[in-house]
């Protein structure tokens, strides 16, 4: 049974680059459709790549996956992907925003932009995950999340397809945990104090 106390988290933010499609498939497919915290994702991608990623992940995962729209209020049970060639930001009131400001760390969308604005909006009520990727985007943002009291998780670089993004974060901060991709979803369910509706399995594994 779900408790009447809501988990303290207002959002989960995820940053991922090279190796992201596989990582996101594994992470998001292990979450239930009624996961109680909105999830915001920046995946580096080609500026021209359209909205194919959201379509693929939505078809593959029990949880709803869509491209973020400017001004929308993020909901539980939904994953919002940054659109190709736009930064995804969080307004102080928690609503989503988009911009075509210059690339940050050579990336648009940039993980740092999402992480820093989410940290500003949600303070200690934010969970940040940095996964596989090349480059160093996301390190500073993850540190900002930690400085604001949020919970920080980094994928173990030794098992990441591309290790430099998680490794560069570990050079900048000591996260709350370094986890394998397999361990990420259970940790999120734990943080969310998720208990599945009776008789249903919490996850649908591929």
């Amino acid at each position: 049974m779900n408790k009447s106390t809501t988990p303290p988290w207002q959002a989960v933010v995820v940053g991922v680059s090279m190796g992201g499609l596989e990582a996101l498939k594994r992470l998001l497919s292990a979450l239930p459709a009624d996961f109680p915290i909105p999830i915001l994702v920046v995946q580096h991608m080609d500026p021209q790549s359209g909205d194919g990623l959201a379509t693929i992940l939505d078809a593959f995962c029990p949880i709803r996956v869509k491209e973020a729209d400017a001004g929308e209020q993020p909901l539980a049970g939904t994953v919002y992907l940054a659109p190709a060639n736009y930064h995804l930001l969080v307004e102080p009131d928690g609503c989503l925003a988009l911009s075509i400001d210059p690339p940050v760390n050579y990336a648009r969308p940039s993980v740092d932009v999402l992480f820093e604005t989410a940290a500003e909006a949600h303070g200690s009520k934010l969970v940040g995950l940095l996964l596989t990727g090349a480059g160093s985007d996301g390190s500073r943002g993850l540190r900002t999340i930690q400085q604001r009291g949020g919970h920080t998780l980094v994928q173990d670089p030794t098992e990441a397809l591309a290790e430099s993004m998680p490794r560069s974060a570990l050079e900048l901060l000591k996260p709350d945990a370094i986890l394998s991709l397999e361990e990420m979803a259970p940790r999120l369910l734990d943080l969310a104090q998720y208990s599945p509706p009776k008789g249903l399995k919490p996850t649908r594994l591929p």
Partner: protein
Amino acid sequence: MPTPNLQHVEMHLLLEGVFQMYGHDFRDYAEASLHRRLNKWLAESRFPGFSEAQGPVLRDPAVFQTLLKGLTVHVTEMFRDPLAFKALREEVIPHLRTYPFLKVWVAGCATGEEAYSLAILLEEEGFKDRYRIYATDIDPEVLTQAKAGIYPLKELQKFTQNYQKAGGKAAFSDYYAASFDLAMLEPRLRERMVFATHNLAVDANFGEMNLVLCRNVLIYFKPNLKARVLELLDASLAPGGFLCLGQKESLDTTPWQKGYQEIAPRSRVYRKRYE
């Protein structure tokens, strides 16, 4: 959290002062990117904080100009979102071709890439001297750059790819001359362009346009300012005219939805209905 709150108060006061002193209204801009821009400007300025910057910004127009420039950064490309330009060429141009004269407004033209893209498109579609492009922006300094039509040569590779994906009919190199690390667009492309300062947040509408491009501008605005600007764009558009928004902007769930028809699903190109 006293620290971020203090900074928000300081930013708010600065923007309020800027509005009262200079008439530029950033008070209803979406905050996350505005705050990032303000912080970037502050970090590059000589001021330790927004309160310290406030006096100089309000008293010295030259300092204000640096702030205005920092707040209105717009990065654009020629033929950004090539498929949108392809849709313009294939779906909109056939309608516009029937007009004796075409008036086009590029609202928020920044350094002019989009206006020049349109000029190339109209030239290739045979409009010759039957059109005028009004290119406006809030920042006079970017308009100076737009008028010059000179871009870093390293950008041209991307512009060329975009142009080809957008259904370009010529060799893109026909449209510019390279010199050292700069590319100068053909001067004839701007013969039919008018550049002017215009502030969507406070200025009035712009006359009977047949085609209005306002792309990736509305995403920077809060709902009430977005509504004001849509009203202004609507008032500037002749019946049967076309409105092009950015890929992540839409008239859905706005009061203007009924008055427009999207020419293809998710094209973000809308045709204003005849009443």
